[in-house]
């Protein structure tokens, strides 16, 4: 048991931090309750999916700069398709689209041996263009049920639907893989590529798989964007850098091999609540971003120091 806690010390710390922040929010704004939680969970939806996708590729030892633009492609595709055909097939097509985009990212990195940061930077522009080709101006219409699915808190009483949906979607994509040898291969590749190769891991396919997963999670992100706005918006939002921030704060080591998806997801909510608190305290929005940046560096620095001390004992 103590082993479990020691290995998940970072996540435990994040949960504690999240609890403290929720209490602080409640103290500042006594009326803060389920509806407040719900609005935070809804606002966090696209961030959560972008972060989950980014976390997978960072764990495998890469990075994907095209997450936000893949989300934009999926959002416009969803809005356009759902206007013309039944919701469920449209949804499946969008998920497949995400998978294909992620697969292409991974395959290009593995086959061309061009560094991941270069390939995905290039693909950022490619997917941006694709999104604009599908829909030049914001438009289309998301299915009603899609919009409804992330409102309220009827799925699990007291917990916002948006949060439940996030957890289910990420769990469905990630857990089967995490539990299989494929998941081990992803961690092994990110941890030490040479050792993984020598242990018989197929490095190339593992990387492609990780990028494909990232694509699927971005498709969920795109669907959530469509659900939030009701339409498709071809210009990507500020999800790229925010996802890197949450991944780092979530205890996933840039360079790969360490961390989980749970930490980054909690980090997403931490970052959203910090923003809420700063808004409630009526901080100048420009100062808000400065404070967010400082908090991020501070938390990662203190957390790393604490972990190192723990490891030495």
């Amino acid at each position: 048991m103590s082993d479990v806690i020691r290995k998940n010390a970072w996540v435990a710390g994040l949960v504690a931090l999240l609890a403290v922040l929720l209490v602080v929010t409640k103290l500042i704004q006594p009326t803060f309750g389920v509806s407040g939680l719900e609005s935070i969970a809804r606002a966090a939806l696209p961030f959560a999916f972008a972060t989950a996708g980014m976390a997978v590729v960072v764990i495998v030892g890469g990075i994907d700069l095209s997450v936000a633009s893949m989300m934009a492609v999926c959002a416009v595709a969803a809005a356009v398709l759902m206007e013309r055909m039944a919701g469920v097939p449209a949804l499946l097509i969008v998920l497949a689209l995400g998978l294909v985009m992620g697969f292409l990212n991974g395959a290009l990195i593995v086959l061309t041996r061009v560094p991941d940061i270069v390939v995905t930077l290039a693909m950022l522009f490619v997917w941006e263009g694709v999104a604009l080709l599908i829909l030049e101006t914001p438009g289309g219409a998301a299915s009603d049920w899609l919009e409804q699915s992330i409102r309220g808190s009827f799925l699990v009483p007291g917990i916002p639907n948006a949060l439940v949906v996030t957890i289910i979607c990420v769990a469905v994509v990630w857990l089967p893989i995490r539990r299989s040898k494929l998941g081990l291969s992803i961690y092994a590749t990110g941890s030490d590529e040479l050792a993984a190769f020598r242990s018989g891991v197929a490095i190339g396919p593992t990387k492609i798989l990780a990028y494909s997963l990232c694509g699927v999670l971005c498709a969920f992100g795109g669907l959530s964007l469509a659900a939030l706005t009701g339409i498709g918006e071809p210009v990507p939002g500020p999800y790229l850098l925010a996802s890197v921030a949450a991944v780092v704060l979530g205890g996933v080591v840039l360079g790969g091999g360490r961390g989980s998806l749970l930490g980054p997801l909690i980090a997403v909510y931490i970052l959203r609540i910090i923003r809420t608190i700063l808004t409630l305290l009526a901080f100048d929005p420009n100062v808000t971003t400065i404070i967010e940046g400082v908090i991020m560096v501070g938390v990662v620095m203190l957390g790393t120091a604490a972990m190192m001390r723990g490891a030495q004992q």
Partner: protein
Amino acid sequence: MSDTVLLDAYGIAKSFGAVHALTNARLRVRAGEVVALMGANGAGKSTFIKIITGALKPGSGQVLIRGEEVRVGNPAQARKSGLVPVYQEPSLIPDLDVTDNLRLGDTPKESFMKWVEELGITDLNMSDTIGELPLATLRILDLARALASEPDVLLLDEMTAALPADLVERVLKVVRQQANEGMGVIYVSHRFNEILELCDTASVLRDGETVGDLTIEAGVEERAVELMLGQKIELGERKITTDLRAHSGNPRVKVRNLAIAPKVTGIDFDLYPGEVLGVVALEGQGQDELFDILAGFYPATSGLIEVNGKSMSFKHPADAIAAGLTLVPGNRADALLAQRSVRENIALPFSVRLPTWGALKLRHERERVQFAIDKLQIDTRAEGEVQRLSGGNQQKVTIGRWLATGVETLLLFDPTRGIDVRTKRQIYPLVRELAAKGASVLFYTSELDEVSLACDRAIVIFNGQIVDVIDAKDADEQTLMRAAYGLTSREGVA
């Protein structure tokens, strides 16, 4: 030992560009046989191992396992066909725990645990993260994992390096047992005593070619050393003879009881002004660590380093440089700014030392650079990028810039590796000239004949300790090779 041939590799050749790493290597392992694979530094052992284990494709030749050709493209396939390697660096995943590492390679857990205990590790926790375990444990785990997969042929690459003596005993015992039960073992090692204890035959590689197979018996060391050395290209004659009695003054660098865990256990030597002290060692005997410490890359575990009579503890390379110790690393790329000009590269050390923020004194700099270039006969315009020079000329720049700057103590780490003969001949006088000007030079070389050409004395490091000090006039290759393999040279010479 039976007659079943488990592994048969023959006619193996491999080139990397213009470099012929292997020309004609072969190796045959029968059931129940332990074969030592031997060869001096640079003989092509690593390349051969990579080809046998499937990490590299041979340029030509065949690798047969149990008579079937292995079309190996990766280690996983070699493993499937029954050949399991244990590499020098453990191939366990640092961020995963023991259980996950076993799952990754489909290693049966019970069998693994049995071997771990057999090999003498009793306190293993399966949820320990690999990266937090000591190196010696990792090597044992790696071996246990290999044994648990029940290989036909086991390849052990310097298995006992970094292992404490009791674990070495265990490993040798277990491996011998397994061989007696029919496993074939390829044992790559620099340690004669282990080879004598464990192996049945030895296959010797020299300059990319298998030059002989030996049956292990008393006195086989002589023959092995002879085979490993072979005929060498003459590198010229030593012109300068130094009088060792000239070093009767105080040493410039004094090293006592230097230990660097886990590889270096005790090094003592004195380096005098005007002396070139050779360092001879097989790969991985602790010489890399010794040079790293002297260059201030990280602190030693224990021991004393004195420079000009003052005790030193380097916390940063800048401390070592300030104390007059300058490293020319084995890898030229570590020392040069490849995209900058020859002039800037030569000038760099003394530009860095400028005490003020003022502009560089370009004319002054130019004169000194020109001096160095003339001296070195670098065949290029000095404004050209360093990366366009040949390897030999690059190396001349890394050494020559200290000629222009003036240096107290130069740490040369295998300065002639991969350099053509003509350039080598220019480098030895250069080193001698630095010494004649009063510099002290510590000169690690993987080419034994360089000791008599450039050094005054040589210390021989084996398994983290100095095992011999040899005068340049006695430093023929046989003597050095024997000493480097931990065989006492005094008996041999006397």
